[in-house]
């Protein structure tokens, strides 16, 4: 394949298959449509605010907008180093690790590989931003998706850093740490097995351009660097998208509506699960926020800490970028349900 350069003569332009241009135009159109839709949604939210409280508008707009920017930028800054670390590991796996080496580490039977991968998440500390690209590259390298998914979910949830943070946030309550570990591990392994039973490979749309084979004639280090650049920029865009959604909810949803649900455990558990999705707090910090929700039952706080590292707006966005939308929608919805159920069961038993 010849690399086309900026000064390509018109003769070569004809050689480009029309289908590629159709795809290109379609993508651009799709992007424009999404931009337009996004603007409409933003306008409706803004309009609603203006209609609901016109007299507050002048007072609200400036500090609210600034707080929104601060939260957005904060989520991005917090995520970037870990996303970069994840893409470095992912690019290294793509460029340097052979398929055979990985399959030697995991048990041959996939049903057994799932819990092994889930436990591996406890040993390899990773933030949720880092584990998405790593899980993607594991799949590209032939690790069964079920096992890679169990790792994806467990790595940010049960690593030592998170467990220590949880014990600090809940002083004198070691059962919180135990319950979090058990419920998170059980959820990740269940999701791996669930994928084994119900998952369809066509839902997964792995981005393959970072693969070593594509760039024939380059050094390994170049392959590594290009994979890294590509994965980082690709995931970075989705990180900003997720951060924008999280910051918007953070500013638009008034914290006072939480007060209504503190009484009933049945309502409080799914409510705090949903709150974890919306707030997109990193797993190192979510225990402190959970502890500050003092009026809620312990099981609801557990649900908050089990759901948060596995499903949140930032993660949904990152997973859409890495695995495709068909996968992200189904997987995140199923993970949320399983996480809430498991947290309720473990909470009823231990807390």
């Amino acid at each position, binding site marked *: 394949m010849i690399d086309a350069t900026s000064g390509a003569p018109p003769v070569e332009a004809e050689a480009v298959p029309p289908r*590629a241009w159709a795809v290109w135009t379609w993508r651009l159109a799709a992007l424009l449509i999404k931009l337009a839709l996004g603007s409409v949604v933003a306008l409706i939210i803004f309009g609603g605010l203006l209609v609901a409280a016109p007299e507050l508008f002048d007072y609200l707009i400036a500090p609210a907008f600034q707080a929104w920017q601060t939260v957005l930028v*904060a989520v991005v800054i917090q995520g970037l180093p870990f996303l970069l670390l994840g893409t470095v590991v992912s690019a290294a796996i793509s460029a340097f690790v052979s398929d055979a080496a990985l399959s030697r580490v995991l048990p041959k039977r996939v049903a057994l590989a799932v819990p092994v991968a889930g436990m591996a998440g406890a040993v390899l500390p990773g933030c949720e931003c880092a584990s998405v690209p790593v899980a993607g590259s594991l799949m590209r390298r032939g690790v069964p998706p079920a096992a890679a998914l169990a790792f994806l979910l467990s790595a940010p949830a049960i690593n030592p850093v998170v467990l220590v943070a949880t014990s600090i946030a809940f002083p004198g309550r070691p059962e919180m740490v135990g319950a979090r570990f058990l419920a998170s591990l059980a959820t990740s392994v269940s999701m791996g097995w669930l994928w084994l039973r119900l998952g369809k490979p066509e839902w997964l749309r792995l981005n393959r351009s970072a693969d070593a084979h594509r760039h024939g004639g380059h050094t390994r280090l170049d392959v590594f660097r290009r994979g890294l650049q590509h994965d980082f920029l690709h995931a970075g865009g989705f990180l900003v998208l997720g951060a924008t959604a999280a910051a918007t909810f953070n500013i638009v949803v008034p914290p006072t509506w939480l*007060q209504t649900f503190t009484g009933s455990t049945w309502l409080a558990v799914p409510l705090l699960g949903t709150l974890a999705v919306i707030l997109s707090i990193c797993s190192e910090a979510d225990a*402190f926020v959970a502890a500050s929700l003092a009026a809620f039952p312990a099981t609801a706080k557990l649900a908050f800490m089990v759901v948060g590292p596995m499903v949140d707006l930032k993660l949904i966005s990152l997973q859409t970028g890495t695995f495709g939308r068909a996968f992200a929608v189904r997987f995140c919805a199923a993970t949320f349900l399983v996480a809430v159920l498991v947290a309720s069961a473990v909470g009823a038993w231990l807390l």
Partner: protein
Amino acid sequence: MRTLNALNRHRTALLLLLSGAALLRITLASDLFQRYVKQSLRPELVAAGVLLVLLGILSAVRDQPGEAHDEEARGHAGPGRLAWLLAPPALLLLSFAPPSLGAFTVARDGSGQIARPVTFDPLPPTGTLRLRLSDFDARAVWDTHQSLKGRTVEVEGFVAPGRNGTWQISRIIVSCCAADARVVAVTVLGPTAPPANTWVTVTGTWNPADATPTIEAATLARIPSPADPYRDTAP
């Protein structure tokens, strides 16, 4: 259109340099990163910034301009135009970095919930008690021995509006980044409120009659805002 096309051809190098420069500006060239994330994240941010700048330079030197662009045109997946979303936050940080969270966040916070500590350490028997706001709150609400009663207390924080025309001295505590901000606040009785977001030291006594933590202020002094705004410290 021509400019946009040119921008797109250099997208990889441009975005890597921009993101790297933004991270280095808020960590090495200033302390601005403390408005957004916890202090201990600085080494990771610096490392990421240096790596991104290096990658950007390498990409500008070694890759053909427009390579990713052309791959997309051929139907292969490049980093995607969504990668451009990295530009606005980076530009924001390189220009006027948004301020740290303050009175607005306090005013929105309706929780008023104070975590119950396991034990209370004994206080020094005499003299002014210099307390963190969260300690004052916890003792005011949960301490059955009322260890604050009758003591002169000094607390530090920024000014935020309270309910029913009162005002509060407040702190925002962040464990990881500004998205996990928690609010602690003490209602101040006595002097009129300084402008919102002014940092002050208040000396006074605890008012046990109020259900929410309240201090009867005797003195009020303005102080410069601290470098790390999100850590609750004693005066």
